[in-house]
């Protein structure tokens, strides 16, 4: 197994820059998520790590070796494709054994290894079946089998659950994570599904327009977003943004919105201009006599909680509150924000203002 380091990785297709100067490190044995909307460069990054695309510039280190210019066949990695890419003219056994055959492994040994992998993945009864008749979940297991059979240095997965039905997804996500924990293999996983990323990942890189927006643990990325994009992309519903013009001084613990004082984590820099006050829906509370008020325009009942949409002087806002709190459309309520969890952003650049909350998180460069 191996550590993977990406340094200033860049990829251009003609005049289009798919990835611009990514830098991050994936620790040995980590389940690492590359997250972002479609077209953000996450798949291109993964394909460069795999050797299916050559980087325009930059370095890729796998297990202490620079492999940026090496062909895929020499990198000792395994790749799981979104559409599985099982060889359609071969049965399950031959599909799984294919990477071993290329190494020239003796037949008896190949058989043994394939049987072992089939046992791990519960594929024993399917080994002699053609792959064309398999269900989505079984195809995915065969694709995983082909990946793990060789004990590669790392697993690269390109939205491996994307082609599965919703019911299978959940199950395969659990199986994948369990398999990873059992094998302890470094895994790089591309997804556009933030829930999947939060659920399964040890670390997440959030990308947008070819740029790494943030790199960190799911908790850090959720609680301490480095940019407006991350704050909006992660979380469902996303973080609320109250836009205002104002001033924040170094050390300040509150800001003024519509002549109301709202709490923030102590600022670590001074900023003047257009700001965004970002607060997660679960950190919004209803209080009867609060000075900052909003009018309820819609409610969504979710069982234990409900999502209440309100209209405030600074724009729409969603609150996640207990389901038993009565919320009627048309009602005006006072709002209280948990100041310690708030992020402030520079509205123009989208950058988070440094504070006690996110200090140390934003220094990724």
């Amino acid at each position, binding site marked *: 197994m191996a550590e993977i380091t990406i340094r200033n990785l860049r990829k251009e297709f003609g005049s289009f820059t798919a990835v611009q100067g990514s830098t991050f490190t994936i620790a040995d044995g980590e389940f690492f998520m590359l997250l972002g909307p479609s077209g953000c460069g996450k798949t291109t990054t993964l394909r460069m790590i*795999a050797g299916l695309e050559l980087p325009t510039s930059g370095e890729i280190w796998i297990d202490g070796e620079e492999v940026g210019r090496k062909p895929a*066949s020499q990198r000792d990695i395994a790749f799981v494709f979104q*559409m599985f890419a099982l060889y359609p003219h071969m049965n399950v056994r031959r599909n799984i054994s294919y990477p071993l055959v290329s190494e020239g492994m003796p037949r008896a040994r190949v058989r043994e290894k394939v049987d072992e992998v089939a046992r791990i993945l519960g594929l024993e009864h399917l080994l002699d079946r053609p792959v064309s008749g398999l269900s989505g979940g079984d195809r995915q297991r065969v694709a995983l089998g082909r990946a793990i059979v060789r004990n590669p240095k790392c697993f690269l997965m390109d939205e491996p659950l994307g082609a599965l039905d919703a019911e299978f997804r959940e199950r395969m996500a659990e199986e994948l994570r369990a398999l990873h924990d059992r094998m302890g293999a470094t895994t790089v996983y591309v997804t556009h599904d933030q829930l999947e990323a939060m659920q399964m990942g040890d670390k997440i890189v959030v990308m947008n327009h070819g740029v790494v927006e943030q790199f960190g643990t799911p908790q850090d990325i959720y609680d301490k977003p480095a940019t407006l994009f991350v704050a909006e992309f992660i979380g469902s519903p996303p973080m609320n943004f109250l836009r205002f013009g104002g001033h924040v001084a170094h050390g300040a613990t509150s800001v003024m919105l519509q002549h109301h004082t709202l709490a923030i984590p102590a600022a670590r820099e001074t900023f003047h201009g257009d700001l965004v006050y970002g607060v997660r829906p679960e950190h919004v509370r209803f209080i009867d006599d609060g000075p900052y008020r909003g009018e309820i325009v819609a409610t969504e009942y979710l069982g234990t909680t409900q999502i209440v949409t309100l209209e405030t002087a600074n724009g729409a806002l969603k609150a996640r509150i207990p389901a038993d709190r009565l919320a009627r459309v048309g009602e005006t309520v006072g709002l209280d924000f948990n100041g310690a969890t708030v992020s402030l952003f520079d509205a123009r650049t989208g950058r988070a203002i440094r504070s006690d909350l996110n200090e140390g998180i934003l220094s990724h460069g």
Partner: protein
Amino acid sequence: MSAHSITEPSVRQKWFAGALVAAYALITLLPLLWIIATGFKSSSDAIAYPPKILFEPTLEGYVNLFTAQTRQSPEYLAQNPPATWYEAIVHDKGMVIAGPSRYGERFMNSVIIGFGATFLSVVLGTLAAYAFSRYRIPLKDDLLFFILSTRMMPPIAVAIPIFLMFRNLGLSDTHAGMILLYTAVNLSLAVWLLKGFIDEIPREYEEAALIDGYTRFQAFMKVVLPQAATGIAATAIFCLIFSWNEYAFAVLLTSGTAQTAPPFIPTIIGVGGQDWPAVAAGATIFLVPVMVFTILLRKHLLRGITFGAVRK
């Protein structure tokens, strides 16, 4: 699929469709049946008017096709009674067999040149199509159009330059020359057809093979080729039909060693009067290889035609 499903045709529609197909089959098959029948007629039956539908079949045409004959005196014929059934047929006309005709040779030339050109077209076409399909090639669209444009005029339009070129290069009346020529003509069709087929094969298959430790060539051989088999078969049929049936260049560029069957068959007419049964026999036998080849690959051909039209 379900979105495009249509209602089951009614009985009347089925009858109508059946009748239409039958009528079309009759029109296309009748000349073929006539040729096959003529091959088994005697010389007089072949030119009888009104045409004879019912006739006494004879292999005279086939014997004439495969043999060279000379007239002999009745005394000689009486002294040398025929030893075999085919000698007997010739004997009855007052002739003896002097040796085999040129037909077998010409037929073999057709086989060598037709299959050779088909093989070469498919190999080169597959490689070129793969490159066009998978690599970023500068001016790709222009190159593809250029390749296609070689089909835009009738090949015979360049007959004179090719004739001169072949003469200077010593390629006239050689197997290699004809194979090269037919390959050149077929190649544009092969590249375009095969590019379509290879475009339909997801790249992920090869990429999976590359990651599984295979070189690009191995991935091509072991993963792409089996997937493209259908398209290759369909392309091979089209290429073979063209090179097999080609007449104009064959007349122009071959006369002896490398002469193919199409220019040879008409010359049979001249041997011993208008021997239509022999011509028909030659044409019938000439039909066989391309028919067998097509029937063998017909499953692929059908799949090939609809390939890519339906996506799961």
